[in-house]
C-alpha cells in the first residue's frame, strides 16, 4: 500500500514555513554570535594577559579547531542523551556554535590586543592610569579598531556554519528547504533559494567589512 499526498506541490503557506526556518537561522546565529563573542573576548583577554592561561586553554582551542563542527554537534547531542540530561535542541546548537565562535574570536581579540604597541601601554601607566583604566581607555579601543573587520568575517562564518545544526534536528532555513524538497521534488528552485538567502545576508556584510579593512589599512 502506498500513501500519496493529495497535492504535494509548492503552496503559498510553504513560504511561511521557509520564513520560520529563516527566522531560526538568524536567531541561532544571533544568540550564538552574542554568547560566542562575549566568551571569546574574555578568553582572548585571558590568553593575552597570562602565559599560564594561554597554555591551559591551548588544548581546548586546538581541539575545537581540529574537529568538524558537525561531529561536535553529534557528539554533544549523544553525550547529553546518554548522560540523561534533558535539553533543548536550540540551546545545544547555541552551545556548540558559540563555543566555536568563542575560540576564533579569542584569537582575533588576542591578536588585536597584541597589536597595541607596548609603549602606549607603558606611557598610559606612567601617566597614572590604573591597569584597568589603561585597558578600557587605551588598549581596548585600539584593539577593537584593528580587529573589528576580522570579527565581522567570523560572524559571517558563523551564519554559514549554522546551516549544519540541522544534523541534530534543529529546523533552520537549510533544513526547512530540504523538508520541502523531499515533499515537492522542486529541488532546483528551493536549493537556489537557499543560496540566495545566504548570499543576500553575507554579501553586503562582507563588502562592508572589506571596505572597513581597507580604510583601517590606510
Amino acid at each position, binding site marked *: 500500500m502506498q500513501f500519496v499526498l493529495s497535492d504535494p506541490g509548492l503552496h503559498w503557506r510553504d513560504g511561511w514555513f521557509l520564513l520560520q526556518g529563516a527566522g531560526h537561522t538568524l536567531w541561532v546565529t544571533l544568540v550564538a554570535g552574542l554568547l560566542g563573542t562575549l566568551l571569546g573576548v574574555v578568553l582572548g583577554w585571558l590568553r593575552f594577559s597570562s602565559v599560564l592561561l594561554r597554555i591551559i586553554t591551548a588544548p581546548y582551542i586546538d581541539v575545537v579547531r*581540529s574537529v568538524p563542527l558537525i561531529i561536535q554537534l*553529534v*557528539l554533544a547531542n549523544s553525550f547529553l542523551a546518554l*548522560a540523561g540530561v534533558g535539553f533543548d535542541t536550540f540551546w545545544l546548537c547555541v552551545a556548540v556554535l558559540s563555543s566555536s565562535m568563542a575560540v576564533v574570536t579569542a584569537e582575533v581579540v588576542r591578536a588585536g590586543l597584541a597589536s597595541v604597541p607596548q609603549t602606549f601601554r607603558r606611557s598610559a601607566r606612567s601617566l597614572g592610569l590604573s591597569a584597568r583604566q589603561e585597558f578600557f581607555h587605551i588598549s581596548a579601543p585600539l584593539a577593537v579598531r584593528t580587529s573589528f573587520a576580522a570579527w565581522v568575517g567570523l560572524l559571517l562564518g558563523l551564519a554559514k556554519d549554522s546551516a549544519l545544526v540541522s544534523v541534530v534536528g534543529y529546523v533552520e532555513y537549510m533544513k526547512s528547504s530540504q523538508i520541502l524538497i523531499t515533499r515537492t521534488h522542486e*529541488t532546483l528552485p528551493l536549493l537556489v533559494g*537557499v543560496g540566495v538567502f545566504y548570499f543576500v545576508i553575507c554579501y553586503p556584510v562582507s563588502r562592508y567589512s572589506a571596505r572597513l579593512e581597507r580604510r583601517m589599512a590606510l
Partner: protein
Amino acid sequence: MFGYVFYWSLVWDALPQLLAGAWLTLQIAVLSMLFGTVVGLALALYRQKGEGAGARFASAWVELARNTPVLFQIYMMYFGLGSVGIQVSSYAAVLIALSFNNAGYLAEIFRGGLAAVHRQQLSAARSLGLTKLQSYLHVIFPQLLRIVFYGYVTQAVWAMLNTSLGMLVGLHELSGAAQSAQSISFRSFEFFFVTALIYYLIAKLMELGARVVFRRWLRV
C-alpha cells in the same frame, strides 16, 4: 553516564571501516586543495587585472564561494545537478564542491600575497628572458606561497574538516563511515568520539606534513 556502559570494543571492531573512511577524507582534502590551488591562483591573477570578463568571472566565483555555506555548495553539486539530469557520484559532488570552495577562499588569500610580492619581480624575470609562465612558476609563486603559508595551511585543515559534510550526501568518508557503522549498534557517542579523535590526528598530520613539505621546497 548514569547506568550507561561504554562499549568501545564495537568501535574497535569497526576500526578498519573508519580508517578506510579516514583515507577517503584525506584523499578528498588533498585533491580539493590541489584543484583549489591551481584554480585559485588563476582567479587571483585575473582579479588582479581588475577589468574584463575574466576579472568579473573571477570575482563572481570568489563571492559565490565565500558567501554561501559549504553545505549548500555540496547540495547544489549533488541534488542540484541531479535534478537537471546530471548524475554525479557523492564522491565527485563533494570533491567538486570543495574544490570550488577552496578556489574561492584561496584566491582571496593569494590576492593578499600577490599584493605583497613586489611588482618589479615580474618585469625583472621577464627581462631576464623567462617566459610569462616561467616567471610566474619560478619567481612569483614561490614567493607568494611563502607569504601566505599560514593562511594556506589553515585553509587546508578547514577543507579537510569540511569533507565531513560528505556524510549528508551519503559519502562514506570518515564521518559517513562512522555514521553507518554506528547505525548497527546506535552507540553513537563511542563512534563519534573516536571519529573526532581521528579528525584531530589528521589535522595535526596535515599541519606537520605541510610544514615539512614547505620547509623542503620553500624554506619557510
